[in-house]
Each structure stands twice: as structure tokens, then as C-alpha cells.
């Protein structure tokens, strides 16, 4: 029983549900109480113990359905011929207790890999010579299953890492089961020319195709069960190095995860500084203790107020046409940061500046980004206007604890750069950091005003990949906090 649960937990971890050993123990205690009898009850109970966010719950549902279920897609195949023996073994729904021994449910994905009864060839006299061929024609599905699983073990199907290896492993398993000999026999039979031989080769071919399908299913299942973190890590490392603009839409989700992970990493290095204040709530306990030695006279007074000092960040993001790809990612990054740094304020602009802090706080990432792009995106750039807007709206909130991050290419369409405004901001705040997605070479070329702006920044960085971004934000938190 416990083995089943451990297997299940392994599957959950593969599906990125974080299950700690303690939670596994809880699940076992829960199983003792609940048992395997009532499927829905079991599912609800395990969901409570093992999945801890709405997203995880969704993933859990899928995993549970897949795991505690024999694949019954073969059932129709068997039942036609073999309904007398082992009926329902392949059916997880009607026979739920069967999954009690479900070491098989996970590893024996190819359960019933033979539906191979010689259905349409009653008059066939010839017997195939290759071992696999005989196995297929005999319709002994147990032997086939065993052979399949053994072949799988032989080629190490559990090592499968990425999806594209599916074909490779399917072929490997086929070969290990003796597919080559079978292929040769089929060719030979076809060359022979006799009716019996033709019929036999036809039947063998059919069975072989069916077997291949089953092997592929088996491999796919193994992929879902075993392609764990290793494949993911590989992908994430790759993504970090890819230029932000090149990352395709379909990888968007993965990027999000990297960003969120990074943001979490950042908070762990972001240490809190506590200050004891000269005013606040009287800490009676401390004061009493401290003053016991002075005969209960209060002259060393202790205060309760301690302030956690966190950087106050304002981020301004260029979302005009030329840099929109990059800013999507900065926005995404800011969104994750906003969860950590409560004081972050986010702005977006093409020419006029707009604050998106509230939007970020109250909507989901996708929503917030879509709306930001809709409201502010893809206009022509005017940095001068942006700075003027910033000055008139937000200057009063800027103080010596504020860090201002600007993301943009500083290409101002030959307008007035108003770098004196940036200078003013520079003097007032603690740090101005400018992240430019363009390489340094092109900073002084064309309508780029980077040189002028750089003078009024504490830090100017090229930033066009996640690695860059990670480094910059790491620096920011270390310096400010």
C-alpha cells in the first residue's frame, strides 16, 4: 500500500507539486483513515494533504486521474476476444481496488500491450519463425507485457529526459524485443510470393504496427512519470541565456517560472535591517526588566517599534514599439518583485507616463501585462515627456531612500531629451539605474541619448537576457537594503 503512495508522490513531484517527506507521512496517516475504497473520498483527502495552491490542485487532479487508472483504451480490443479471462483488469474505474497493487499502474503503462489475437486469419497454417512474431500471433498478452517492460528496462526508458526522445526510445524498445528479426521475416515472406506467406506477413505487419503504438504509449507514460527535474533544469538554463526578445511565445510560461524563481532567490539574499527607534510603543516588559536594577525607577526606556527597512523602488518602463519585447519581461519581473517589495511603484510609457502599480496589484500577470501594453504600448517614444510627467506627478515621493529603475533604449526620435530633469531626480533619490537592452556599441549612434542620460545615472547596464536582469536586481537589493 505504502509503495503505491510513494510512487504517486513521485509522480506528483514530477508534475511540479512540491511534496515534502512530512507531507508524504501525512498522506499515509490520511490513507490509514480513508482507505482505498471510496475513490472520490480518497482524491479529496489526498488533495487536501498534498497540494497546497490552486494551481497545484489542478495539477493534482490530472495526476490522480492518470495514476489511479489503468489504461482501458485497450479494453475494447480484449473484450471482444477475451472477455472470459481477466475481464476488467484493464479497467480502473469499475475495479478501483485493483490499483492497490499499482506498482503496475505506474510502471506497467503498457499493460495489455497485446491485443493480438489472430482474429481475421482462422485458416492460417503457417507459423512465424521469429520469436516476436510467434509471441504476437499467439496473442499471449501477459508474455508480451512482460517482454515490453523488460525491454524498457533494458534500454533504460526511465532515463528519458525530453519529449523529443520518445521516438528514439520507442525504436530502442522495439529492437530490444526483437523487432529486427520480425522485420526481416516480414520482408522475406513478402518476397516469397505464396498466398499463405502473404497473409501471414500482412497479419504480422498489422500486429507490429499495433505493438509499435503500444510501445509509444508506454514510452509516453514513462516520459510523464520520469522526465523529472533534470529536463526542466536543462531548459531553464538555456532560457536564461537566450536573449529576451528571441524567446518565443510558447516558452513564455517557462520564462515566467524562471523569473518568479529568481525573484524568490532575491528575497533570500535581501536581508532585513532593523532599526530601534527613539519613539513608538513602550515595551513594558523590556523596560521593567531593564529597570529592575534601578529599583524600579524608569530611566532606561525601551521602545517596541522596530522598522524593517526595505528599498523603495520606482520602475519606469518603456513600452514603445522598439523595445516592447524587452519591457514585457521587465514588467513581468517587476510583477514578481511587487510581491516581495511592498513599496514598489511601476510606471509605463511611450510618451505619456502612466502608473501601473494598482493594475499589477489587482490583476494576474497576463492581465496586467496585456492591459499595460494596450494602454501605453507601441507609441513613438518621448523620453522628455516621460521625465516631465514623472517630475510633476511623483517628484514629491522621491527621497533619499528611493531607487529608480528605468528600462529603455533612450532613443528619443531626436526630441528634447530633458536630461536636466533626470539630473534633478538623480540628486534627490538614492539611486538611478538605467537598463538598456541595446549593446553598448550602439548607445551613441543615431537618435540614442544614452550618453546624456548616463551622466545622470548611478548605474547604467546593458540588459537583454535574464542573466543580466538577475545580476542587476541582485546588485540593487544588496546595495540598497
Amino acid at each position, binding site marked *: 500500500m505504502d509503495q503505491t503512495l510513494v510512487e504517486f508522490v513521485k509522480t506528483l513531484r514530477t508534475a511540479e507539486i512540491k511534496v515534502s517527506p512530512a507531507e508524504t507521512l*501525512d498522506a499515509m496517516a490520511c490513507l490509514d483513515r480513508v482507505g482505498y475504497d471510496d475513490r472520490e473520498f480518497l482524491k479529496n483527502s489526498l488533495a487536501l494533504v498534498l497540494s497546497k*495552491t490552486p494551481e497545484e490542485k489542478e495539477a493534482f487532479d490530472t495526476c490522480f486521474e492518470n495514476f489511479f487508472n489503468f489504461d482501458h483504451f485497450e479494453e475494447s480490443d480484449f473484450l471482444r476476444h477475451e472477455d472470459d479471462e481477466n475481464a476488467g483488469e484493464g479497467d480502473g474505474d469499475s475495479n478501483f481496488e485493483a490499483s492497490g497493487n499499482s506498482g503496475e499502474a505506474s510502471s506497467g503503462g503498457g499493460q495489455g500491450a497485446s491485443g493480438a489475437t489472430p482474429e481475421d486469419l482462422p485458416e492460417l497454417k503457417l507459423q512465424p519463425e521469429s520469436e516476436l512474431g510467434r509471441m504476437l500471433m499467439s496473442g499471449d498478452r501477459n508474455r508480451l507485457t512482460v517482454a515490453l517492460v523488460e525491454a524498457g528496462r533494458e534500454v533504460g526508458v526511465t532515463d528519458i529526459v525530453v519529449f523529443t526522445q520518445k521516438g528514439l526510445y520507442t525504436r530502442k524498445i522495439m529492437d530490444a524485443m526483437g523487432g529486427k528479426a520480425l522485420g526481416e521475416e516480414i520482408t522475406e515472406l513478402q518476397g516469397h510470393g505464396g498466398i499463405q506467406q502473404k497473409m501471414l506477413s500482412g497479419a504480422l505487419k498489422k500486429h507490429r504496427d499495433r505493438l509499435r503504438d503500444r510501445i509509444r504509449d508506454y514510452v509516453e507514460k514513462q516520459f510523464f512519470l520520469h522526465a523529472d527535474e533534470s529536463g526542466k533544469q536543462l531548459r531553464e538554463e538555456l532560457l536564461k541565456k537566450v536573449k529576451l526578445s528571441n524567446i518565443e511565445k510558447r516558452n513564455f510560461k517557462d520564462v515566467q517560472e524562471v523569473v518568479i524563481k529568481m525573484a524568490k532567490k532575491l528575497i533570500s539574499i535581501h536581508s532585513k535591517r532593523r532599526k530601534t527607534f527613539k519613539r513608538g510603543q513602550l515595551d513594558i*516588559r523590556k523596560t*521593567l526588566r531593564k529597570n529592575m536594577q534601578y529599583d*524600579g525607577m524608569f530611566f532606561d526606556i525601551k521602545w517596541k517599534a522596530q522598522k524593517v527597512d526595505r528599498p523603495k523602488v520606482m520602475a519606469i518602463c518603456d513600452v514603445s514599439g522598439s523595445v516592447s519585447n524587452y519591457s514585457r519581461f521587465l514588467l513581468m519581473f517587476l510583477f514578481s518583485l511587487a510581491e516581495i517589495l511592498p513599496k514598489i511603484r511601476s510606471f509605463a510609457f511611450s510618451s505619456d507616463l502612466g502608473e501601473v502599480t494598482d493594475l499589477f496589484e489587482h490583476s494576474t500577470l497576463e492581465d496586467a501585462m496585456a492591459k499595460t501594453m494596450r494602454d501605453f504600448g507601441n507609441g513613438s517614444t518621448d523620453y522628455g515627456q516621460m521625465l516631465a510627467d514623472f517630475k510633476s506627478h511623483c517628484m514629491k515621493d522621491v527621497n533619499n531612500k528611493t531607487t529608480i529603475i528605468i528600462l529603455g533604449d533612450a532613443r528619443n526620435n531626436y526630441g528634447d531629451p530633458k536630461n536636466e530633469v533626470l539630473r534633478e531626480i538623480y540628486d534627490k533619490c538614492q539611486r538611478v539605474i538605467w537598463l538598456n537592452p541595446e549593446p553598448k556599441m550602439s548607445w551613441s549612434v543615431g537618435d540614442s541619448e544614452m550618453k546624456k542620460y548616463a551622466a545622470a545615472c548611478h548605474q547604467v547596464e546593458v540588459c537583454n537576457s535574464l542573466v543580466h536582469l538577475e545580476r542587476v536586481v541582485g546588485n540593487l537589493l544588496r546595495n540598497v537594503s
Partner: protein
Amino acid sequence: MALKNDYRLASVDVIQQNFESRNYIANKQIATAVFLAYHLEKPVLIEGPPGVGKTELAKTTAELLDLECIRLQCYEGLDESKAIYEWKYGKQLLYTQVLKETLDEVLQGAKGLSQSIEKLHEFGDIFFSNEFLEPRPLLKALRSNEGCVLLIDEVDKSDHEFESLLLEMLSDFQVSIPEIGTVKAHTDRKPLVFLTSNNTREISDALKRRCLHLYIPFPDADLEKQIIHARVPEIAENLRSQLVNFVQELREMDLKKVPAISETIDWARTLILLHSETLDQDLVNQTLNVILKFQEDIESVEPEIATLTNKALKDA
């Protein structure tokens, strides 16, 4: 565990029925959570949008078991002196004064400094003993004699530090007070703990790991009708389905704050007060502020009222 009335938690079905008789419509997941919370002695962390009955679940459970419901409302800056215990400083001060005056009597017969100090030591820990302890909700819950339901409400509003403070309580049902030692709950009558969170920030993994995690989403139309029926039984059936349909439609819209069950219930009560029998455009227009709490939301819904009302009427 052996709380009184625990036969009312005998199985998931029993729990569902009992909740229903107390006008709380629980689906299977909710009932399972309560069942396991009791039998595995684990706290339940309830998440979900505001107004779906997270707090109500704890209160109803307390009512069901006929136990006291001790509630700790979390907020920023909540610390152990408000959550666990505090010393009664006034009393300690007073006693210090009294002691000063009676010092002579106490020290009577003592010879020399060392003997006097020895005598004084006998009093040493009195000031930090149970008599001077002011229990706060968590300590109260641990000390309650017949068990209780402890509701830690909106735990996401508290600071990270407070979360860590909760860990000892949640995993071992005990708290440590440096001056006294560890206070443990009665092994057979541990408090049944519910934590609620609106997910305004991520709860730490350490806390989540110690809890069962229940997510209560907005109910579907059928469940919501049942809930309205249980809470506002006097409402006519057709009006009930109309207003539920209407609210369900609203939840599909892009609003700042979508109406929750509590708003639907309020609305049902409002409509009864107005003696309405069926939903119509004007009525919706006048009472929209019961279900929508932001002017922007009301403005964005107003042009749609006609369509929404018609749809709700048709579906009902």
C-alpha cells in the same frame, strides 16, 4: 482525539448533513477537510476569494461541536504579546510595592546577607508565574479544558515573523513561554485550528506544510442556489434562480471586485425587503450597490444591465 459531540464528525456524509442543518452548505471537499482535520489532528488552511464562507466554516464547526470559537484576527504588526500571552505588568508593579513594604517581615530571622538572599530567592519566580500571565487567543485555545475551535483569521495580513511564531503551535499544539516553560494542549482535546487567507501574499511553505490546504472557489449556480435557500429560506424559488444567474454572469465580467456569496445573500435579503417577486431592470439598477462595491464596477455594469437581466430571466 475525543471532543464532545464528535459523533457529528463521524463521516463525510454526516458532516455534510450536519452542516446543512446549520445552514452551511458544504461540498464534499469542505466536509472532507473538516473530517480529516479532526481525525488527523491537523490545522486547515483555507484559501479562496473573499466572501465564500471561509470564516463561516470555522464558526459553523464550532457551533456543530458545541465548542467555544476562539478567534485571532491577524493584522500587520501582530506580535506574540497580542497573540500568545502578556504579563500583567500593573499587577507585577503593585506586588513589587507590597513586597517592598513587607520585606522586613519576610527577612525576619535571617542572619547575614547570604541567608536573606536565600529567603528572597524563594520568592524569585512569583512575578513570572501563571498568576501574572494574561493569556491571549493562542494560549487560551491551548488551555481550554474541553477543546475549542481556534480561528486564525486572515493570516496573510500578518507579518512573516508572526507566521514563524505560529509554526510551533500548529505542528505540536504547544507554545513556549521562556519564563514558565512549554504549555501543551490536552492530548485528547487539542483545539481544532482553522486558518484563513485571502492570498494577498504567498504563505510560507513551512506553514503550508503543516496544514491541510482547502481551496474554496466561488460556487457553481446549483450550489449557490442551495446556499441562498439555506440562508434566506423565505425567498421565492424563481427569484432565487434569477438572482443567482445574474450574479454568476457578473462573475464572468471584468470587475474590480466580483460579488461573493455573502453579497448574493445580502442581495437576496434586500429583494425580500423590497417585496420584489421578479428581477427587472429598474430593480437591478437600484440595488446594484448591494452586490458591487466599487463605483467603477457599477459604471461598467450599468450599460449591460438590460442584457444581463434578460439572460438571467431566460435561464431561470
